[in-house]
């Protein structure tokens, strides 16, 4: 095992010098009369404060070495991701269409839990064989990557499904009228939705390492890890993200598809919301 060199510390003076970069960016904005200097400064401040808080929290969690604390942190990350996926995109798109669908939050949270949870389990327990099993140095960063990617992919797929179901309403009803099941009637649309999230994910696999060194590899190399090991980690990460995205997307899309149909295999009426013209049987 190659000796790890000490990571160079960034002291307060280092931070101050780095802050100079944000100030310079703000300066450029001012020079070009963009009116964005304030936002650069606010962004810089928020980045510093938020990351510092996260840093302190992580220091505490790492030192405590308590499994439930680690799971708590993972839970908070998951909840934040599910909320971000359900709140911003869902409600404004729905409001624009005037559709009242079932709340997105439970679907997204469950799909993320299953998709990300299983992926994390596989990577940390089976691939890396982390010990102790809850080692926060591994679980927390890896989970962050998994959940972030899975959420983005699932959001893409869900958004695409909504758009297609809206656009191809007549075709779906034509299938239903011929005696198709809701699954068959929407099969092509489900395929398009899942493809929408799979393509970026696959492209990610295709180009990793070509365009720029991925963030995690960069971090490890800076910390003194040998590039060979860093590369292997990055491969594991790339595979793990592809899987997490695929699994989470398919759960979200198949679950969400159900909300478009009634128990009597009709399309939900979009003007009146779920279960429009009949009580659900």
């Amino acid at each position, binding site marked *: 095992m190659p000796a790890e060199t000490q990571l160079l510390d960034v002291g307060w003076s280092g931070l101050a010098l780095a802050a100079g970069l944000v100030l310079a960016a703000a300066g450029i904005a001012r020079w070009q009369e963009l009116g964005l200097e304030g936002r650069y400064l606010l962004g810089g401040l928020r980045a510093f404060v938020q990351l510092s808080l996260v840093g302190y929290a992580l220091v505490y969690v790492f030192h405590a070495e308590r499994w439930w604390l680690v799971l708590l942190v993972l839970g908070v990350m998951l909840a934040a991701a599910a909320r971000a996926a359900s709140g911003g995109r869902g409600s404004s798109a729905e409001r624009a269409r005037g559709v009242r669908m079932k709340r997105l939050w439970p679907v997204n949270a469950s799909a993320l839990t299953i998709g990300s949870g299983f992926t994390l389990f596989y990577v940390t327990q089976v691939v890396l064989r982390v010990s102790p099993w809850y080692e926060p140095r591994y679980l927390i960063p890896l989970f962050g990557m998994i959940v972030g990617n899975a959420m983005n992919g699932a959001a893409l797929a869900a958004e695409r499904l909504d758009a297609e179901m809206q656009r191809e309403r007549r075709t779906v009803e*034509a299938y239903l*009228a*011929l*005696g198709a099941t809701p699954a068959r009637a929407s099969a092509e649309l489900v395929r398009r939705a899942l493809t929408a999230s799979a393509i970026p994910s696959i492209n990610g696999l295709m180009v990793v390492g070509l365009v720029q060194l991925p963030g995690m590899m960069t971090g490890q190399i800076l910390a003194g890890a040998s590039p060979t090991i860093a590369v292997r980690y990055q491969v594991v990460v790339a595979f793990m993200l592809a899987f997490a995205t695929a699994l989470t997307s398919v759960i979200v899309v198949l679950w969400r598809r159900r909300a478009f149909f*009634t128990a009597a295999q*009709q399309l939900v009426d979009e003007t009146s919301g779920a279960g429009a*013209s*009949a009580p659900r049987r």
Partner: protein
Amino acid sequence: MTAAERSSRGSEVSGEPALFALRGVGVERGGRAVLHDVTLELPRARLTSIVGPSGAGKTSLLRLLDRLDDPCTGTIDFAGQPLVAHAVRALRRRVAFVFQTPALFAGSVADNLRVAAELGGLGAEVAELESVLRAVGIDPGDAERDAAQLSGGEQQRVGIGRALMTRPEVLLLDEPTSALDPEAAQRLLGTVQRLAAQRGLSVIMVTHRLSEARQYSEHCVMLEAGRLVEAGSTAAMFASATTARARAYLASSE
């Protein structure tokens, strides 16, 4: 005699059980009553027309018969049994719905028919395909043409052909001629009449053209603003409608 009485009397007289029997049926959409307290019977006629001004609820009524929507109030019977007692998919094979704009599937004419056959759980041998194409007035030689490139009238015919692939007893047509010029409309309805006779189908057709109702249907149902105005034999209705509103509407026929 009320419209409902007249309608049910019509089927009693013929001695046959009604094809569809609606009682107190109401449909609400977006807070508005699209259909209100509709009670009527639809007999097993060769062709029944549903007429009325725009917004009368004609399409909404037709959709109930295939359970594309369910009523908020009231009951519907099909062939003597409550509509909801039939398995939905089996019902939709027996009662076929053709939309106003056909929403054809991607691919050729034959592809559309094959998908329909597969959904109906039936094989789609070439002979069957050709028979259906001829029945709807499409040259079997055109079977591999891209469905998207057909004219409006041809697309309607493919839509009807698709519906026929599940070997239904009842054909529901939602304004089949609305996008067609008068000659094409006449040709299409002539085709519908012929294939209904050949295959023993009962056709229920929504139309806003009274002339079509008068010319092609034996039985007629008139709606206005979501309510039943009149129902009965077409000849009797056009000759002597019982209500003033009905007479006024019929008098405006082209």
